[in-house]
């Protein structure tokens, strides 16, 4: 743990009714880190992400962004600084690709229409979709939708991007284009916390992989260590299964 951590999660507990989903999760992320969060379904991965931008409130523990406890920040201000990309895209169905990107720029950052439009176009260009700026979500493929979703989050110039299984709802042949954008972002130094089971991406882009099981981080380390020499048998088994399912095709 160091003073210049961008994100620090400390002893996070979250329960839904009687079930404790997160049982004391702690980790840190330095600027430009790409952390990949893996784990069986129901292990609390999505819940953990959603606690970071406070889409879900938690009972115990502290999350700090750039030195400020997020519980003390205005939630809208926090979310402006922490972008999120969803499994189901959640593009605003009534707005064009460009309109999806400009909404936050106009309403949250208060940019003029011209500024918002030009920033949105630049962002769409970065994800390779400038030519689809005027298309509505229903007119886009899954991969294109997700790239718009990434552009929408990026446009706010966030300090941290959260990815919640960004490729899980995609046809296999569309996964590559989304992972390509994510790899570019990682190369450009974007700090990213990703729930994903794309092991090719994890091997190539991740600084660290965290294995979440039963509401706790049971193993945490650089990809090479986790893939080659995991401390726990459970981690090794899980990774083996993922690799055979989601290979290195990313």
């Amino acid at each position, binding site marked *: 743990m160091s003073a210049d951590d961008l994100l620090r999660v400390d002893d996070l507990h979250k329960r839904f009714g009687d079930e404790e989903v997160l049982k004391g999760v702690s980790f840190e992320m330095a600027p430009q880190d790409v952390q990949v969060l893996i784990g069986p379904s129901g292990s609390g991965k999505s819940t953990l992400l959603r606690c970071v931008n406070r889409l879900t409130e938690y009972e115990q523990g502290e999350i700090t962004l750039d030195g400020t406890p997020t519980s003390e920040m205005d939630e809208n201000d926090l*979310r*402006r600084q922490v972008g999120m990309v*969803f499994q189901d895209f*959640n593009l*605003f*169905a*009534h707005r064009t690709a460009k309109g999806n990107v400009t909404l936050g720029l106009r309403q949250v950052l208060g940019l003029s229409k011209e500024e918002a439009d030009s920033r949105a176009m630049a962002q769409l260009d970065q994800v390779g979709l400038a030519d689809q700026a005027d*298309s509505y979500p229903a*007119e886009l493929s899954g991969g294109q939708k997700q790239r718009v979703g990434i552009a*929408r989050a990026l446009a706010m110039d966030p300090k941290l991007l959260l990815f919640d299984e960004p490729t899980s709802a995609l046809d296999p042949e569309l996964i590559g284009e989304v992972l390509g954008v994510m790899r570019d972002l990682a190369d450009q130094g974007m700090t990213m916390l990703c729930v994903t089971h794309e092991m090719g991406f994890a091997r190539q882009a991740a600084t660290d992989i965290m294995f979440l099981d039963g509401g706790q981080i049971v193993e945490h380390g650089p990809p090479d260590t986790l893939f080659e020499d995991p401390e726990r048998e459970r981690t090794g088994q899980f990774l083996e299964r993922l690799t055979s399912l989601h290979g290195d095709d990313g």
Partner: protein
Amino acid sequence: MPCPVPVPGGLSPDWQYVLENACYLGDGLAVTIELTVVSLLVGFAAGLPAGVVEVYGHRSGSRPVRWASGLVRNAGVVLRGTPIVVIIMLTYFAAGISPAFLAATVSLGFRSAAYQAQIFRGAIESVDRGQMEAARAVGLSKVQSIRHVVLPQALRRSVPGFQNEVTIVLKDTSIAFAIGLAELLTNSYDLFQSIGHTTAIFEVILFVSGLYFVLTVSANRALEALNDAVAIPGGERG
């Protein structure tokens, strides 16, 4: 006042009588249309916020908003549970709101608000939860998210339900007959009650029914056109 509508020859005396008085019925028709439009606007102005408050209000952190939500919900139950003739008589005779046009507007308007609130509530609840979540995740406040993301989609989905409501309000303006407002039905009643013309009941009522029918069909066509005009290209999958 002489009516400029030409009356063709060869008609039965009762039909001749109807056409000679077409302008009198036209005056009633104008009141009916006016009453419909104003009542629907009152219903929209009150019903849309009521629908929003019903969906989001009871979970609000603010006590006045939760209180308003409860009030809106109960007012809706009362308005939907009371016959419109009773409402209009209460408004005009018991509460003494006059003139009759105002009493009719208040009655039809707030009754419509109660129904429109349900149309909007249903439409709002049908918008995928992920839409609100994505808006909040970008940093929009709850109110901004409702205004810029949920409502634009919910309003589009409200058009078919609203179409129904327009038809109902339009026909229910005839209830203003109960307080003597000079709308279409009241004026037609005057015609066949006039001395020497009581045999024209059938002709008058048939003519007036035709007018109501033309109005409802036109209003429905117009709203279908609106529905097409605001449809999201490609459908609604976000």
